[in-house]
């Protein structure tokens, strides 16, 4: 009898465990009952925690005011992890958000993998003629629109005006000046000139563009990272670090860069509008006027920074597509963009927003708008998001002296040719 009880208990436990495994699938149950949106919209935001996230959370939850029956579930996923996390969730079909803040280079890749819902003809795209053409470009893949542009950005030199004054130097406009200015800063104030991020190849792009190079030439289907300009650019960044003009790290680059700049240990960083709110939290920038912004230094051939930004994309497997479309529209509307530009100095993707007084008066936005207009647009192919992983490995190897600039870009080029079948 006792045995029988044990066996029954065992069977019951197994059955319980099995049902527990099968029991997920929240977030849904929505739709538009009688024209009114309801249910839950889960949004994965990737903005910087501690500064940007508060504004976005508040804005996202404001959606409920327009649609009282919809609950917005705001989730902040660290930018560095979001791409992989979304891919995992999207592929397995469980745990994926309804709406994701997708970096411009991720968008064509997600679309190519079939993870995103096409938005043409849905309420998500409203007044789409108002979007800046370069912002809208990254949302198109295979003649369909897969995302709505949320913010657009590029990069510039952020500098600490006080340190520059103490050292008696002007903002460098090219690499040569960058080196001499850094040396004077070091000599006169003991601080390091530039913090160069060594663990993320996105920070290498402005040096590559400065030498007239690019990662790939999508028009000619050609890998260009390993040509002469690529070698030169690697040599330039290596020389900046070796000569002491710049300091770098192979890990924790973002935190170290921001901490060093906020605390006034380095005079310059290269960064984009997304870093402004975080920079203002530093002791050196209690007086916001101490932060100066200038164009990235020119190389021997050109001056250019990458065009970046973020889109809002709707997951194709969302159980609440209608509310998700409406949410994407709400977050990218002119009103929402104006709020974000005013509070976080992030650049709107709608032409009309720049004319609003609260945006037109914003100094950071005013500086970056012309930079964005001239920024180098990357090819919006599905592989664009894949180009960084091989490059960052070699970039870090070059900076830490494990390989030469030439071998570094050659190894990168080889991986690109594996990735992009039939390219030269």
């Amino acid at each position, binding site marked *: 009898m006792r*045995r029988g009880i044990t*066996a029954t208990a*065992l069977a019951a436990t*197994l059955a319980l465990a099995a049902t527990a495994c099968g029991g997920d699938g929240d977030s849904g149950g929505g739709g538009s009952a009688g024209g009114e949106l309801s249910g839950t919209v889960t949004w994965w935001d990737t903005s910087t925690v501690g500064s940007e996230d508060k504004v976005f959370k508040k804005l996202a939850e404001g959606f409920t005011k327009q649609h009282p029956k919809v609950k917005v579930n705001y989730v902040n996923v660290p930018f560095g992890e979001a*791409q*992989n996390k979304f*891919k*995992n969730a*999207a*592929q397995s*079909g469980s745990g994926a958000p309804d709406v994701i803040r997708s970096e411009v280079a991720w968008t064509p*890749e997600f679309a*190519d*993998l*079939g*993870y995103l*819902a096409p938005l043409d003809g849905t309420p998500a795209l409203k007044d789409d003629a108002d979007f800046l053409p370069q912002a809208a470009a990254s949302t198109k893949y295979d003649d369909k629109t897969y995302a709505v542009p949320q913010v657009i950005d590029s990069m510039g030199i952020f500098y600490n005006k006080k340190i520059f004054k103490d050292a008696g130097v002007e903002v460098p406009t090219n690499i040569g000046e960058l080196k001499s200015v850094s040396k004077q800063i070091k000599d006169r104030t003991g601080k390091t000139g530039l913090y160069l991020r*060594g*663990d993320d190849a996105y920070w290498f792009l402005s040096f590559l563009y400065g030498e007239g190079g690019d990662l790939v030439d999508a028009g000619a289907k050609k890998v260009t990272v390993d040509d002469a300009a690529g070698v030169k650019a690697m040599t330039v960044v290596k020389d900046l670090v070796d000569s002491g003009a710049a*300091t*770098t*790290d*192979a*890990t*924790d680059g973002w935190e*170290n860069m921001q*901490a*060093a700049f906020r605390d006034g*240990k380095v005079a310059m960083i290269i960064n984009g509008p997304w870093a402004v709110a975080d920079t203002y939290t530093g002791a050196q920038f209690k007086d916001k006027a101490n932060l100066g912004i200038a164009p990235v230094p020119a190389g021997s051939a050109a001056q250019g920074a990458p065009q970046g930004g973020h889109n809002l994309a709707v*997951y*194709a*497997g*969302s159980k609440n597509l209608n509310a998700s479309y409406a949410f994407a529209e709400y977050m990218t509307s002119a009103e929402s963009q104006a709020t974000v530009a005013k509070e976080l100095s992030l650049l709107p993707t709608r032409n009309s927003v720049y004319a609003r007084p609260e945006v037109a008066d914003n100094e950071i936005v005013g500086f970056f708008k012309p930079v964005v207009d001239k920024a180098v647009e990357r090819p919006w192919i599905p592989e664009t*998001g*894949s180009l960084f*992983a*091989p490059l960052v*490995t*070699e970039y*870090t*190897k070059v*900076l*830490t*002296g*494990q*390989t030469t600039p030439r071998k570094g870009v050659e190894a990168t080029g080889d991986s690109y040719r594996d*990735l992009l079948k039939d390219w030269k």
Partner: protein
Amino acid sequence: MTVHTSRSPGPDAAGDGAGRRGTGRGTDPGTGRGAARGKGRGSGPGADRGSGRGAGRSAGQGAGRGSGAPAGRLRRAVTTHWYAWAMVAPVVAVIGVIIGYPLVRGVYLSLTDADERNVERSIGVNHLPATYEFVGLDNYADALTGSQFLSTLGWTLVWTVSCVGVTFALGLGLANMLNRRIAGRSVYRMLLILPWAVPGFVSVFAWRFLYNEDRGFLNRLLAGGGIDAVPWLNDPTWAKFSVIAVNVWLGVPFMMVALLGGLQSIPGELYEAAEMDGAGAWQRFRHITMPGLRAVSTTVVLLSTIWTFNMFPVIFLLTRGGPGEATQILVTQAYKFSFEISPRDFAQSSTWGVLILVLLMLFAAVYRRVLVKQGDTW
């Protein structure tokens, strides 16, 4: 088991095998099963072999008679032990699902060209079928002829040997110290076990903060002594040193506790007798302690080698394999193929996984053989 079977006298074993095969082809499937069972327990005493041979003979004489005995035994085993089998069945099923299926699936993927773009995906209404193809052993050929696998393997071996070597030496030293009667012994023991009590990822993150070049505690300490900042995780050579140091720090408590247990099982009379005979401290250590620890130390070295070889969290959380790929070991590289690069290369990742498994199995087999040769019953 195979070792024992191969030790059985040559001609006999050959006849045996042939007999079984003959039966297997025979008409009665029951005989085949019986023979297979006989083979499965090949290491057993003569009686078992006898049954196998009986089945072999029956192939010539008449399948019916020979098959009776093993099938009957099977039935008897089922009737007397059915409850045990029923109790074991869920475990077997669960292990089959959670270990067997992924293993088989991994091996299969390593023989295909599966990546993120061609595996089956089901997203809402979109259903994309799998389009990857079987490519045979191409992935293995690529891995073994390319430089990446071999150079990663080289560093993985250096990492494993230095971690296990240093951990064992330190663990042995500490265990010997704490085996003496010193004041506050139990306090020291508790303190030394602490690294083990803290969750691994927490301590690795703590170390990452300590190692930070500009803001880390270690460099501030050095700066206080007037020493220049050390690029703990930013220089390839220092990074290798740093990851090994953290893994040793994490691994010493286990070694120490295991060896301390071993030390306490060595009878004190042996030391007393040795002292009477005038043996010095080193002689006592060499001839009593070391042999006395043999059983424990062989086991912990094997376990520690396997753990260290596959020590994912330390490398991944400390350096992510960087700078560049300086500290990338086989498992972290396999993870990178599967989760960090895009498109995710599931085939190559599985290939590396299978190769890791094969390497560790080879190591365990060789290690065991060496021990058996040295007369250990293991």
